[in-house]
């Protein structure tokens, strides 16, 4: 009898020991793996509150084609929407999408963001913003076309191939949304891209280089005319 009771006690203590070991292992796991991530989150939060101040007004005026007054207006609008002085991609997408309530402008905004973000660090400063605007609104035709080429050349290899163009055109069509007339068909973007390549690809090698692009655009009256469309935007 006593031996049985003693064994019973031992069994119970075994159970207790196992449970304690389990808790210890969990705690160890926490200390090693899981606990780190919690701290990391806090660090991340602190990092995002970076504030950026642009260069002086005079310098910007020298670098771009805007005068002081225009720069003032631009900066006020910029700072109003992004008080921290930099635009990150999400904010950019949000802002751009507000102009196109019908469809989904986020893909095209992504490409635009990459085109604006000259340093490719994931944020647009006021200088980037103003430089790009200066090219688009006050630059020469060649500069504008070059900028557009950069926009289309997603991987920045100097060539536009069909896939890149498909992405861009699809992104543009996404902005139209669902309710269009006539109804969008699945092969509409492809048609558009084929037409584009037909026009632009002079030597028919399947890619469009910068020179081909500029040459073809200069031949097209409509494009030339439309490039001048936004000159008096500011």
């Amino acid at each position, binding site marked *: 009898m006593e031996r049985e009771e003693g064994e019973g006690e031992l069994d119970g203590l075994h159970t207790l020991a196992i449970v304690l070991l389990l808790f210890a292992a969990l705690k160890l796991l926490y200390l090693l793996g899981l606990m780190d991530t919690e701290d990391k989150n806090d660090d991340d939060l602190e990092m995002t509150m970076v504030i950026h101040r642009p260069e002086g007004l005079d310098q910007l005026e020298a670098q771009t084609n805007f005068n002081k007054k225009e720069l003032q207006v631009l900066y006020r609008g910029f700072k109003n929407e992004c008080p921290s002085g930099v635009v990150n991609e999400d904010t950019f997408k949000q802002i751009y999408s507000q102009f196109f309530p019908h469809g989904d402008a986020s893909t095209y905004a992504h490409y635009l963001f990459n085109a604006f973000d000259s340093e490719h660090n994931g944020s647009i400063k006021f200088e980037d913003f103003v430089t790009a605007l200066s090219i688009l609104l006050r630059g020469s035709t060649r500069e504008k076309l070059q900028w557009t080429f950069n926009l289309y050349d997603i991987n920045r290899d100097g060539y536009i191939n069909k896939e890149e163009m498909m992405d861009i055109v699809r992104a543009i069509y996404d902005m139209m949304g669902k309710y269009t007339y006539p109804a969008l068909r699945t092969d509409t973007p492809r048609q558009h891209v084929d037409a584009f390549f037909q026009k632009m690809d002079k030597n028919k090698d399947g890619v469009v280089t910068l020179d081909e692009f500029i040459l073809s655009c200069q031949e097209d009256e*409509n494009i030339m005319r439309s490039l001048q469309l936004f000159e008096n935007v500011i």
Partner: protein
Amino acid sequence: MASGVAAWLPFARAAAIGWMPVANCPMPIAPRDHSKRKDELIILNVSGRRFQTWRTTLERYPDTLLGSSEKEFFYNEEAKEYFFDRDPDAFRSVLNFYRTGKLHYPRYECISAYDEELAFFGIIPEIIGDCCYEEYKDRKRENAERLMDDQEENKDAKLPNMTFRETMWRAFENPHTSTMALVFYYVTGFFIAISVITNVVETVPCGYKSQKDVPCGERYTVAFFCMDTACVMIFTVEYLLRLFAAPSRYRFMRSVMSIIDVVAILPYYIGLVMTDNEDVSGAFVTLRVFRVFRIFKFSRHSQGLRILGYTLKSCASELGFLLFSLTMAIIIFATVMFYAEKGSSSSKFTSIPASFWYTIVTMTTLGYGDMVPKTIAGKIFGSICSLSGVLVIALPVPVIVSNFSRIYHQNQRADKRRAQKVQKARLARIRIAKKGSTTAYLQTKRNGLLNELLDLTASEVEQQHLNKTSSLLESQHHHLLHCLEKTTGHEFVDEQLFEQNCLEGALQPYRSHSRTPSASSQDGPTGTCCSRRSKRGSTPVPNASQPHMLTHTLPQSPGLQELSAINIQCAEQQLHGSSRSNLNMQTNEVDRRNTRQQQQQVTTAIISVQTPSTGSSASDEDHDHGLGLPSVVTTASSNVIKVSAL
């Protein structure tokens, strides 16, 4: 268009240069900034306190007082400022809305005063930012309730011309309305109490009979039976009267109170029906249990009881969580205790379910002591069990308590239901406002086209009529959207139009999908509009670009031919020889369509189609939706421009 991103519109328009090489068609002309004013500071004098801001800041929201020309009414010439005789404190939030794009509700402000200010300045309160919206809605609800309470007190005055049935129903629902109702109310309450007490006393042992304790029920059977019968009579009569008086009998029968009534009186009738059979008497005894439900009839008489019931219902999720966590804990601890106590002899923990009882008793800190652990491990786990029991039970309880107190204080049954409706209404309004921007574009487009038409005919009078002064910002934004349309060659349409076009498209046989611009493909499907096709013949068409044509047909205009000159044809596309012949065909088609439609509409046939293979304008017009659009467009708008088919 939304908020402070007005400042980014120049950027969005500049970025549109990215579309230009892709587009095949010429872009529309940009609106010119006629009033090229330099941005100036505006002084807003609100009851003596001067606020200053840029003019463009205010113009961000052109549909409010400060953003539109309505503020000119308040312009003070001598002081060169805008004077408003309003509360300057509330004006702070209004002005901040223009600056930041977010409307905030200051807590110190009275809700009705704030509402008035917003209404004055033309701002809808639904756009209050999420940070302040809850507070705003809560305050508004409280205010509304206060008003309603005041109204309800007046409502008790008896309305004339109420039928007998309505009077009775009102008497049942509000006992204070008449003396009869009050009497009825107390009588039923009294009988409920009697019935409950009878049921209780029935089981008390009174006296002896053959050396055995006999409950009073069996001793004075007849008396109790009479009492029971009387109570049930009263309840039955009451139920039937309520049923008769109820405005919607079906709804009444489904309500909780009526079900309680039925359940309360049913056992008696079942008992009457059933004989003193040995087999069924067991079930009969069970039925008697339901007699205790009569006590729930008291909830009609007590507001607090109803609120308690409602609280429990509304805290269902917290109660569910409590139950679930308790179950989890019970199972865990019961298992642990069973295995811990397994070794000990004469242990009461014979199985895990048997340990459940111990766990529950310990966790709720009851501690009956009928089952106690004997081993050391069992005692350790037992103490952990009781400590954790306190925690697990204590967690959801404050939530339930606070819920109850909130509901009790506000004294509202339909609180949550009303809140949900408000939330839906708010979202609906915001959605409508957002949709306003999309429909605004479509609207302006129609108006814009009409403007173009009238520009050409140079009829001054009509021009002035239709020249809507939309703000420059709006016109620039619409121009941007127009450029996008031109780039892709498709147009924005309404949801309804889209569905309609889809339907029409589905009805018509699907044509010209093949890529080969062969003759046969063009002749292809024999739709209802075959005749046109055959007329056209079959000319292979280069795949290159697609034509876009803008055909304006005008009422009293002499020749369609002349207007066809407006056709903004897309580049280098030679169709069927001369463009003139094309136009002729166009004319005839439009002609035929007009007669076929038999309607008077503006036929601004925007036949811009990017069809897969056939780039010809011919196939463009084959699309019946081609005319579907204009016909519906104008039925949507209320323009009265009639088109006479030429």
